């Protein structure tokens, strides 16, 4: 499956980060993508006037693991401790869709040719939609990096964009995965420890309280929105099947009642397309928005934890310095260590403050754009549905 990346979906994802100006110095997008059996190949296309690139315009092919490698390299880089690291795109997941297509193939014998073709088209459209979404999500990640004043200069980022060979970042082997697992356990234990310490700075104290609660609520809203949209899709599927059966009833004869069934079948065909569109738009404007801010709020929390860690280190260095001075032993060493911790902490605090303010601005703007668009689309579809129903009822009443 090849995607001609639909500009609408790209735009929808750009909307999640509205401050992404088209900056002439560095423009990144995913110009093409190819879905093979178990992997997706993204064509990352760059346009840049920066001197460090060999050309002004170039493309490379990247897979999902390479995006993760890039993201992780940001997270592990101490220099970027004071920034909200743009959340990594989720792994392309076609399992559910593939399973459905397979089930359909197995059940081919039990349905009519029309039903089979119809269902196949539906599932293929679903597959394509998932595909386009994953492309958009990977693109948004790159755009966020490119828009960030510091991250856009990162060496690994430039290699990612320019190096036209495989980066060989093969999936982590078992040992590395175990190490990661333990690192995360330690981090979260740390996180609890750090979160418990009340911050002297009001701004950060407020942010900490806010983010902890907000993140949990976004998580809940995200999962509930998914559930709601799934029910909506199921209902639309039912209407599709009802339309087909009404059609079969309508073609059995040419009596009045059969003609009636045909008209109603046609109506349901059209209304269910609209219903499916409503569910898809809700998915895009609401569910995906919530999912994205779930990931970003986590990234913001991570920033706070890193700052909290640096604060703890700073406080420990202070205590060590006092002890050293009291014993008058290794004072210089303690002083240097304390200064390093102090600088690190202050540097993180400074950039973190700005990052968190920017995060708020982005969030409010993204919610505004998506909620307005959601409302407009709901209205558009409801009006479309209404018109279809009104004209059909008018015709049917006139016939009687």
């Amino acid at each position: 499956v090849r995607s001609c990346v639909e500009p609408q979906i790209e735009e929808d994802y750009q909307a999640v980060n509205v401050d992404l100006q088209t900056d002439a110095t560095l423009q990144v997008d995913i110009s093409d993508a190819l879905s093979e059996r178990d992997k997706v190949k993204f064509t990352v296309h760059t346009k840049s006037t920066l001197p460090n690139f060999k050309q002004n315009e170039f493309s490379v092919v990247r897979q999902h693991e390479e995006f993760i490698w890039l993201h992780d390299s940001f997270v592990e880089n101490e220099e970027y401790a004071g920034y909200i690291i743009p959340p990594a795109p989720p792994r392309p997941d076609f399992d559910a869709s593939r399973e459905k297509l397979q089930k359909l193939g197995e059940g081919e014998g039990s349905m009519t040719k029309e039903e089979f073709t119809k269902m196949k088209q539906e599932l293929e459209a679903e597959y394509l939609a998932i595909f386009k979404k994953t492309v958009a999500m990977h693109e948004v990640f790159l755009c966020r990096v490119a828009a960030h004043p510091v991250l856009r200069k990162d060496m690994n980022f430039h290699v990612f964009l320019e190096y036209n060979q495989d980066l060989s970042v093969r999936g982590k082997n078992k040992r590395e995965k175990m190490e990661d697992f333990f690192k995360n356990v330690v981090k979260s234990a740390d996180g609890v420890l750090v979160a418990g310490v009340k911050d002297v700075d009001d701004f950060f104290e407020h942010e900490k309280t806010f983010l902890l609660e907000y993140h949990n609520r976004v998580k809940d809203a995200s999962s509930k929105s998914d559930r709601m949209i799934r029910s909506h899709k199921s209902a639309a599927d039912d209407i599709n099947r009802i339309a087909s059966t009404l059609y079969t009833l309508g073609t059995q004869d040419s009596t009045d009642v059969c003609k009636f069934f045909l008209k109603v079948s046609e109506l349901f065909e059209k209304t269910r397309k609209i219903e499916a569109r409503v569910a898809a738009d809700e998915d895009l404007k609401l569910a995906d928005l919530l999912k994205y801010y779930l990931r970003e709020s986590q990234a913001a929390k991570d920033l706070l934890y890193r700052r909290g860690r640096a604060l703890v280190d700073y406080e420990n260095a202070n205590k060590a310095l006092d002890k050293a001075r009291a014993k008058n032993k290794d004072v210089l060493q303690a002083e240097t260590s304390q200064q390093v911790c102090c600088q690190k902490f202050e540097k993180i605090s400074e950039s973190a403050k700005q990052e968190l303010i920017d995060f708020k601005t982005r969030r409010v703007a993204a919610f505004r754009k998506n909620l307005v668009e959601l409302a407009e689309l709901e209205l558009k579809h409801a009006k479309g549905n209404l018109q279809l129903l009104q004209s059909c009822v008018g015709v049917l009443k006139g016939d009687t």
Partner: protein
Amino acid sequence: MQLDEEIEDKFELNISITNPEKVGDGMNAYMAYKVSTQTTLPMFRSKTFTVRRRFSDFLGLYEKLSDKHTLNGYIVPPPPEKSIMGMTKVKVGKEDNSSAEFVERRRAALERYLQRVVFHPSLLQDPDVRECVCVCALSGAGFLKMINRATDSLSKMTIKMNESDVWFEEKLQEVEAEDQQLRKLHIMVDSLVGHRKELSVNTGGFAKSVAMLGSSEDNTALSRALSQLAEVEDKMEQLHQEQAASDSFCFAELLADYIRLLGSVRASFDQRMKTWQRWQDAQNMLQKKRETEAKLLWANKPDKLQQAKDDITEWEAKVTQYERDFDRVSATVRKEVLRFEKEKARDFKKQIIKYLESLLQSQQQLIKYWEAFLPEAKAIA
């Protein structure tokens, strides 16, 4: 029996079933319904009257009508289904949504059933029908018999008929094909009802969740917009719930009714085949009797000959009678099927238009809610 046009054009007849009331307590309790009739038909003594009836009364009516009229080829409308589960909940006093829904569904189904019966010009003539709507006590009330009628069981007719009239064969095939499709459709509509109910519940869950999100959002305008969104979704929960009820009452119930009615149609075809078989059997018997006579003549047994001659006369009469019966029943079945098809067309059109109108109203509501929300979303700064 030529009252169809007369009834429709000259006289009024309106029947409704309302006011379900629980009578008694515990497992002996039952629901009594008010049956109200308003009519200008001369066969009734008053213009308006009401009686109270219970479900078993309607079942009793069906039994009586079926006993009398099915064998003549009439399509006797079947009553609503019994439901031990549904009724037990009501008896036990479980006052929840599902038992209220059950009672309403039953009330509506009984109303449709009774209307079908009285609007059948031949059945209306039956005194039992009149007794059901305007006499106080109906005999046989108070027990539910296990009905084993042709409508309940798909009787496998093993009679192979030499169909002289291809109309009947084609019609039966049509009926069977339609039955299959209606059953399929019913399953799908049930599925839709289920998913809409699910959607309603999930929308409610989402609404609460958005309200929570809004209250923790620290941008004031966004916080307000989110709580407005929560209100919209709350209203949507209600809307989906109502829509599911409409799916069920307007659409699913209609299909269920007609699946049962098609059973009655099949029964009338079966009945015709039975009368054909009886005629054939009589012809065979007549043939045997003639052979017996021939044998006796040949064997020269004059004393038994008179008996044989009497037998032949008897069976000749029977053959004539049964042939007439078969013709009469065939004609009735044919007329009944045509009447049924007309009624079905009218019913489906009416109900489905009603259903579409409910969908229409839903969309109108939807538009109102989102139009109210849009300025709130735009006000986010």
